[in-house]
Each structure stands twice: as structure tokens, then as C-alpha cells.
């Protein structure tokens, strides 16, 4: 039997995701793919493999999984409480999941979408050129208890690595560029949009998230009679009641509600990961600045592998030596993960 991740118990929002399927916009199918693309790239960096391999995206909570054979795993994105056979393991790290071991991933402690990447990636059939499930389009289905998810071949054995991720789990300032309908909003409304504090609403999914302004909603003269026009992930749509709705990876491809701006790809993970109630602010940048920001972001992604470090830290780098169990820390690769001080 081929190597597989056996699913014993699973949350309601667990799906197979990759970078999605670009190229079907003309047919009304959005790209889809992981809500937090950076988390896939981080998972791939931890496992030393290509980020195009499919992983599990876990919205809100994970589940209980078993390894049919030894396999490498990496945990990234929203921080969830995870243990292997009862021993807590560090998030944003790679681990060995030995044959027969149980991996339990609980609810998110920070952020919305956690990711479980596997050495060799998930080896599932492609639909229209990608493995990612597109829930809004009815393409593929959620992972369910009893599933055996086959893995691709993995030529590597290294585990016990960690990565300090770019902070993006608790809201913050989101940069956006003016887009095709920004001019429908008055200068005063744009200014108010930039100075308003928003809270992520409890309503949100892979298609998008609603964000609630402190104070009044936003208005345009164009109102409800705008001709339907192309939508891309990151667009901030102002719905009929003036509330912004940020479109994410599984968004529709056209829409008639006016859009005030479009969030930079670099900041889209921050919106996807914000938990209900998280504070978000918006800041317009010029297209030229946006290109520079994206260039730096792309370079950073390319360099991620060089930021991966062993879970065992050099004692010289540890500021507070007293709080660490040095003896177990230097003795074996995975021991230190059991110490809560690492989490």
C-alpha cells in the first residue's frame, strides 16, 4: 500500500490546497488555492521541497491523523495546538511523524488558517490542472474522517527544523492600490476609509471576509447601478449597506458592487488570517510603491529556505539560559520541543 495520511477525525473546514488554478477567469472560475499562500511556501521551505505540492488547509481547527508509514510533516500558518502521540510539538516547524503515530491538531490559538504540509506532498488527482479544492465552485470536497490521503515520493529525511514566520495573524495595517472603481468614491470617503479602524467580522470564508468599520459605512454615487466588472482576489468591495468585503482566493470573478481599492498580494495573508474582532486599518500606496513591495516580498519568499533553522538552538543564542533545560536540549534532536518554553 502506498504511503498515506489516514484521517481519523477532522474539522469542518479542512481541504486540500495548492497555489490554485490560474487561467480559468474567462470561464468564471477564480484561481482558488490556499487562503494564505505564504504558509504553503513556508511549509515547503521547512521540508526543503517545491511549494507547488499540495498540503492540507485547516480553517479554524485540524483533526486527528495517522501515518501509514514514516513521513515528514510541517505545520505553518495559523498557530494551532498540535501533538504527536500526546507530546506537544512546535508550530512553524517540521517533524517526523513515524509509522503508526497519531498527530492531533486542535483549534487555532492565533490566526484562521493552519497548514499541514507533507514530505512529497499530497498525491491526489488534479481537476482542471490543480489539486486544490474550490468549495465555492463545487470542485472537489472537504476532507472527511476515514479518508486515506496518498503522499508523493519523498527523497529527504531531514526534520526538526523551524522557521520564524512573518507576523500576520492578528490584523494590522493593510496596503492597497487604487483600482478601477476607486474614482467612484469621493476624496473625503477615501480619506475616511484610511483613517477608520475596522474589525474583522465573524462572517468570513475562503471567498472573502466582511470587515466592520467603526462608524458609518462607505457610500458612492454609483451605488447599486454599477455594471458588473472583473474582480480579483484582494479587491475591497463595498456592499449595498456600505460595509467592506475583502475578496479572497475563492472569490467570484465578476461583481457589481463598487470596489474602493485592491489589497496587495503581500498583505492578503494578513486579511485571510485575521480572526474575528482583529483590528485592521487600510493605507493606499502608489502602484510604483506596490511593485517595489511585491518585489521585496518575492525576494523574501525565495530566501525563506535560508531562514530555516534547527529546532535545537545554539546555547550562545539563548538570552535566558535558566529557562531552558540544557541537558535534554543538547542531548537529542526532538527533546526540546516537549518543553513548553519553546512554544
Amino acid at each position, binding site marked *: 500500500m502506498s504511503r498515506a495520511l489516514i484521517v481519523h477525525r477532522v474539522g469542518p473546514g479542512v481541504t486540500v490546497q495548492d497555489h490554485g488554478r490560474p487561467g480559468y*477567469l474567462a470561464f468564471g472560475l477564480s484561481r482558488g488555492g490556499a487562503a494564505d499562500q505564504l504558509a504553503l511556501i513556508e511549509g515547503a521551505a521547512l521540508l526543503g521541497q517545491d511549494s507547488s505540492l499540495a498540503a492540507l488547509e485547516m480553517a479554524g481547527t485540524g483533526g486527528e491523523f495517522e501515518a501509514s508509514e514514516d513521513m515528514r510533516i510541517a505545520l505553518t500558518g495559523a498557530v494551532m495546538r498540535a501533538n504527536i502521540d500526546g507530546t506537544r510539538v512546535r508550530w512553524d516547524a517540521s517533524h517526523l511523524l513515524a509509522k503508526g503515530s497519531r498527530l492531533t491538531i486542535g483549534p487555532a490559538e492565533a490566526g484562521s488558517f493552519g497548514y499541514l504540509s507533507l514530505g512529497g506532498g499530497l498525491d491526489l488527482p488534479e481537476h482542471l490542472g490543480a489539486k486544490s479544492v474550490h468549495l*465555492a465552485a463545487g470542485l472537489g470536497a472537504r476532507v472527511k474522517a476515514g479518508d486515506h490521503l496518498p503522499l508523493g515520493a519523498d527523497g529527504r529525511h531531514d526534520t526538526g527544523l523551524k522557521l520564524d514566520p512573518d507576523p500576520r495573524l492578528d490584523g494590522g495595517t493593510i496596503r492597497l492600490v487604487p483600482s478601477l472603481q476607486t474614482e467612484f468614491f469621493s476624496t473625503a470617503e477615501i480619506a475616511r476609509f484610511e483613517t477608520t479602524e475596522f474589525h474583522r467580522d465573524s462572517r468570513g470564508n475562503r471567498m472573502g471576509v466582511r470587515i466592520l468599520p467603526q462608524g458609518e459605512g462607505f457610500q458612492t454615487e454609483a451605488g447599486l447601478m454599477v455594471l458588473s466588472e472583473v474582480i480579483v482576489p484582494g479587491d475591497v468591495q463595498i456592499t449595498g449597506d456600505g460595509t467592506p468585503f475583502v475578496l479572497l482566493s475563492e472569490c467570484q470573478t465578476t461583481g457589481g458592487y463598487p470596489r474602493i481599492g485592491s489589497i496587495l498580494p503581500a498583505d492578503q495573508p494578513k486579511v485571510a488570517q485575521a480572526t474575528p474582532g482583529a483590528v485592521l486599518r487600510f493605507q493606499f500606496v502608489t502602484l510604483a510603491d506596490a511593485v517595489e513591495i511585491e518585489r521585496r516580498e518575492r525576494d523574501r519568499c525565495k530566501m525563506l529556505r535560508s531562514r530555516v533553522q534547527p529546532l535545537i538552538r545554539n546555547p550562545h543564542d539563548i538570552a535566558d539560559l535558566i529557562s531552558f533545560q540544557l541537558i535534554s536540549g543538547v542531548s537529542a534532536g526532538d527533546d526540546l520541543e516537549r518543553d513548553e518554553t519553546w512554544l
Partner: protein
Amino acid sequence: MTPHPSAENAGWPRIRTAGFDGFLVSFADHLSEPANRAALAFRDAIGRAGWAGVEETSTSLVSTYLRFDPLWSDHAQMQAALEGLLGDQDWFTAKLPTGRRFWRVPTVFGTDMAPQLEEASKAAGMSPEEAITSISGTRVRVQTIGFAPGMPYLGELAEDWNIPRQTALTSQVPAGGLCVALRQLVLFPVATPTGWRQIGQTGFRLFRPDSDKPFVLSPGDEVLFEPTTPEKLHAMKEDADGGAVSEVIS
């Protein structure tokens, strides 16, 4: 549709950026048949031009969208290429795509399957009966495919149907639901929340991911929504076409 005088197109086409990595070339700011044809033909022309850095193109009702990699090509370069191509011909006189089909789609109007017929008719200043006659008697054209996979925007309906979308979203219109606003009809391939009012229900599956033709309708196809009863529609529920039949438009 009445032909548009050339003055209608003054100031168009217009090029705008769309998000960080896109351009939108619009041929009008309202629905117009020449602008719709122009958008389709211009997208074809971009495809034939084969510019480096272009990642994807599509059309909406009156616009052509292009996505590119701004770190590979820059915005100024891409804008200049678009301007150059626009100057090549009068896009408003472009022909419709070839290989178009005409579909007759059985539709239940009103009843509890399409609960907003009355409300939509009222907004259009008609009785529900007049509304059914008006809609089912208009052969509409697929102007674009968008929003959801394989989903057509169809038009153009009589001026009475220039009604706005509703302020609040309907939380769920089922797959096959026929909705109206802005002199247009949309037919949903999957259950979806929407601001459009549902006036009809069909059994026509627009997106068939495991078929060799996953997207059934194409821009330029024409459709007539023919009234049927809930009982007849129910009897056709195993049929992916929901009783719809088509022929090539010659």
C-alpha cells in the same frame, strides 16, 4: 438592439489598472452590444499578439481584462502595448465569435422555487404574468461568462427591466436559479448568495468539471427561457441539461 451612433463611443476605449497586476480595457461604461463585441475581439487579439509577461486574459460585459507580472514587464510597457493594439482597428465593428449556439432552457417562473418573481415584476412595473411573457419572449445573448464557473450574463432585456440589485444579499439562490437586474439575466451554476432577484428556476448544469466540456455556454451563445411547470422540471432532474436543447446558429 438599435445601432449606436459613433458619437456614443467618444472617449472610449479607456485603459485603467485593475489591482496590482492587471489592466482593464473598457469599451463603454454601460452595457452596449458593440462594446461587448469589441471586448471579446480585443481579448482574442491579445491572445494572438503573444506578449511576454501576460498571465491571463478574460472579458467582462464591456471590457477586456489582462493580468501580467509587473515584476517581469512593467506597467508603462504593458499600457503602451495595449494602446498600440487598440489603434490597430475599430473594435466596435468587430464580429461576434464563430460557432455560437442557440439554447432553449425549460424554466419554472415564480412559485416557491423562484420566490422573487412578484417583487421583481413590481420593480419593472409589470404583473407577474406580464413579466413571464416579457422574459420568456426575449431571446437573450451570453454577453460574458463570469462570477461563478460557467455562469452567463445574458441580455439585453427591455428597458422596463433596468431595475437595481437589492440592497441586501439573498443568502442563497440554488444552482440553476435565474435572476434579474439591470436589463440582464444571470443563471447560477452553483448555489450562491446574490444581490440579484430570483425569478426562475432551471435544471441546466452550467459547470461540469468532470466532462470534456466543463463550461457549457460561451459568450455569443443565445438563450430562450421557456416556461415549464415544477412537475416537469422535477421529472428532468437526472438530465444535466435539465431538458435544454441547442442548435448551432448559422
